[in-house]
Every structure is written in C-alpha cells, then in structure tokens.
C-alpha cells in the first residue's frame, strides 16, 4: 500500500527511544521521515533534517523520525542502537521504532530517508527526498523547507513529489 499526495495519511502511535508514545497530533504541519542508523544516505541528510526540525519548531511543525528496518538482519538498526545514537547525538525530534514495519507499509515508504509532509488534516502534501543532492549540505533540505513553507502559508508545495533517494527499507523476510 502507498499513499498519494492529497490522501489522508494513516495515523499511528510508536514509541520513542525513551518508550514514550508519539503520534501525528494535528499540528499545522507534520513531517514524517523514515530513516535509520546504518544507511549512508540517511546519515548524510540527518543534519539537514535535524536543522529543519529546529528551525520550524517555533512555527508549530511536528517532526517524527521513524526507523522501520529489520533489526534481525541489520543489528545496527535495533531499538538499543537507536537509544545509543540518540544518547550520543543532539536529536531535536523523537526517533520512533516501527518494530512491526506496519507504519512503513501503510505509508508505502521505500527508502531511508523518505520524507512525508502532512497538513493539519493529516493530508499528504509532499513526499520524496529532503532536497536534490545528498552530497551537498548547502541544499539544507530545500524541498522539505519549501513544502513546509507552502503548507504553513496555505499553498500547494512545488514540487509536491520527488523521487525518494536512499537505501531501501530493510523488510523482514
């Protein structure tokens, strides 16, 4: 299953690295980012996504990072490894564990990272990569920021969809 721009995205509730549950809460905009610990694309974009979370915090935007990877085959993506990473780094957004992979499946997430921007009605307004080049930090997550600015201003994002780029989600066998 996957969701298309304009569709209402599924709700969910997942635990962060402290065990506290998080869900899309009807914020003016919500960013759901599928990511993980081991993927170089996810790592390359992490600082840009984290900085966007800091920059948009005072505009009421909710950011949720989700790791859905199969930890059995990829131990570096285990819940314990997520906890260690958050303890060692500065994370301005909760890092959620999708142990069953149900949320990734419901969203049709393909890669790490894969970015979904939702409006206050949880309708999907942007889906794809954070920006056009994982190797260029000066991009600063431009597509993500453009989408957020548009949603917050009541406009349609442009682009509203880009090709997600990264490592494939590591599905359970």
């Amino acid at each position: 299953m996957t969701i298309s721009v304009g569709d209402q995205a599924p709700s969910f509730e997942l635990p962060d690295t402290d065990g506290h549950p998080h869900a899309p809460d009807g914020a003016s905009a919500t960013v759901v980012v599928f990511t993980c610990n081991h993927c170089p694309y996810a790592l390359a974009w992490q600082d840009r996504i984290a900085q966007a979370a800091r920059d948009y915090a005072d505009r009421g935007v909710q950011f949720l990072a989700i790791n859905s990877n199969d930890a059995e085959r990829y131990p570096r993506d285990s819940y314990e490894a997520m906890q260690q990473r958050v303890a060692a780094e500065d994370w301005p957004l909760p890092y959620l564990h999708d142990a069953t992979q149900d949320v990734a499946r419901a969203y049709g997430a393909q890669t790490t990272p894969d970015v979904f921007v939702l409006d206050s009605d949880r309708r999907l307004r942007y889906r794809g990569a954070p920006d056009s080049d994982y190797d260029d930090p000066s991009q600063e997550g431009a597509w993500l920021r453009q989408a957020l600015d548009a949603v917050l201003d009541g406009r349609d994002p442009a682009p509203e969809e880009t090709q997600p780029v990264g490592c494939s989600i590591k599905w359970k066998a």
Partner: protein
Amino acid sequence: MRFPGSPTILIDGRDVVTPSADEPIGLTCRVYRRRDGEVSPTPDPADLRAAIQEVIK
C-alpha cells in the same frame, strides 16, 4: 571474507578506500567519509582518483 558493504570498489583486488578496523562487515550499505568529513554513500572522487593513479603509475 570481510565484505564492508555496497558499494565497494576494488582495483586489482584492492579496496580503493581501506575499511577501518571497526567498520561493520556484511551485506549492507557502506558508509564513506569524504575528505571534508561529510558522510557519503560513495567514495570521495579524490580518493578514487588517487587509488587509480597508484595502480597505473
């Protein structure tokens, strides 16, 4: 065999970027560090050029 992940580029059987001892091994995505310190899914082009030049000199 210690496979450090994909992509790994070998020239005459030698890795263009020597994996560090603590680098995880297995069928996974490989994390490279570019010369400016940024994480990348591919080797720094300068490292690739240097490895080729080392072989052909």
